[in-house]
């Protein structure tokens, strides 16, 4: 009889323990975890709010003057990206500007190398100095590196390769206009002073051409250069050279440290070194000793 009572008590204790464990495991423990998480979150929000309040008290928010500076900067950016109907219109602007520049800089010979579309080989070169025949040494030099030229233009056609894809790639230009970027090659034969002036000047005109690679070699009596550039423009019709809008986002952390003190104070346009068109010092001819490659 005593044994029976003892066993009943044992069963009762075990059953109570099981129920206690079930409560603890299924209800109390998850509730305590949740409670801890909520307290942590509350503390975190409280600290963040205090941090933000202290930050706001020291932060110089943009006033009307600063907003005007932002607006002018946007205007300057838009001016630097020609607004064209289609790819052919942009090319016409570039060809005309390059022709003028080639004449002004007194180049002996200048050719424009372009692809019909991304991934395609270079089409027949376009003579930029229509009154002068294309120099033989330039043609031979180009023929020697045709494959390399094709490869370079194909590489530069990929806007992901551009250091600017993260800044410009995510931008929208309103209306139906979209950003397009296209690589071109300019092959030049000229005396050294003229050639260097042309290299310096080729980013000056409306097309805002950016040099992505420069190669130099030697012709019969003068240096030769192959300048690969990239031009960006706003196009309204469909274009083979469109930059996908989703590419690169807004370029966060690309150039500016998000925690930089610079961002806490109003911008000062005078303190920004914009870089301006700058002429080279006088270049003497015949000091550049380039050696003709024996193919």
């Amino acid at each position, binding site marked *: 009889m005593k044994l029976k009572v003892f066993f009943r008590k044992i069963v009762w204790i075990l059953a109570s323990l099981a129920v206690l464990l079930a409560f603890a495991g299924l209800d109390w423990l998850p509730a305590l975890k949740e409670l801890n998480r909520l307290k942590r979150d509350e503390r975190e*929000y409280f600290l963040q709010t205090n941090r933000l309040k202290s930050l706001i008290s020291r932060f110089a928010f943009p006033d009307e003057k600063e907003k005007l500076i932002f607006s002018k900067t946007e205007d300057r950016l838009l001016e630097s990206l020609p607004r064209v109907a289609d790819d052919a219109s942009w090319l016409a602007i570039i060809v005309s500007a390059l022709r003028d520049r080639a004449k002004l800089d007194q180049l002996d010979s200048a050719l424009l190398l372009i692809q019909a579309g991304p991934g395609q080989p270079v089409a027949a070169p376009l003579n930029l100095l229509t009154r002068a025949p294309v120099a033989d040494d330039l043609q031979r030099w180009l023929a020697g590196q045709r494959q390399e030229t094709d490869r370079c233009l194909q590489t530069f056609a990929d806007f992901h390769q551009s250091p600017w894809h993260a800044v410009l790639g995510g931008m929208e230009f309103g209306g139906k206009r979209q950003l397009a970027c296209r690589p071109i090659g300019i092959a030049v034969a000229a005396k050294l002073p003229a050639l260097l002036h042309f290299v310096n000047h080729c980013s000056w005109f409306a097309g805002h051409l950016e040099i992505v690679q420069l190669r130099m070699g030697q012709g019969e009596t003068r240096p030769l250069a192959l300048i690969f550039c990239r031009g960006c423009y706003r196009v309204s019709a469909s274009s083979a050279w469109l930059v996908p809008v989703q590419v690169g986002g807004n370029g966060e952390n*690309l150039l500016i440290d998000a925690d930089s003190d610079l961002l806490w104070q109003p911008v000062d346009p005078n303190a920004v070194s914009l870089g301006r068109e700058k002429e080279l010092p006088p270049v003497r001819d015949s000091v550049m000793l380039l050696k003709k490659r024996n193919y």
Partner: protein
Amino acid sequence: MLPLIFFIILAAVSALLHFEKSRCQKRMLTARQQFNLTARAAPVEKAKAQRGWFYKINYYLGYAWRNSYAAADFVHRLSGIVRMPLQIFDLKIVPGWQNFRFELALAVAADKREQARRVFTGFYQVMQDFTDISQMAFSEPTPPDLTPGQAANGFVFIISGQVETE
């Protein structure tokens, strides 16, 4: 009776825990709301993004000019120090964010390798005086004996490096 009291105690503990949880949740939501209201009222991040954008765009607007000048100026300075029997064989310049990489192939007309190396070393030391060159290395002509191409072109040394444009 005892089991009933036991169950009531367990249920009371549960109820207390859930009551505290709900109170904490309300407090957390209030704190979050407070933070969001403060952030929305003072758009610090938006202002910082606008300023960041301003600096980036200004850098972009001057980038093409800076690059073309830097490349032309480098070739110009190089042309001032190349003297016979040294001749530039090939030159490649690839601009980057705040610098450009270059690869320069120099041919040295000489009969012997040691003689060519002496001339090249003199030139390399002058190039090291370019204060904007941050990295530079060269490779010696290989193979050591003159190949048919080298016999025609002289000993060709390759210098590669990086020039700071800022």
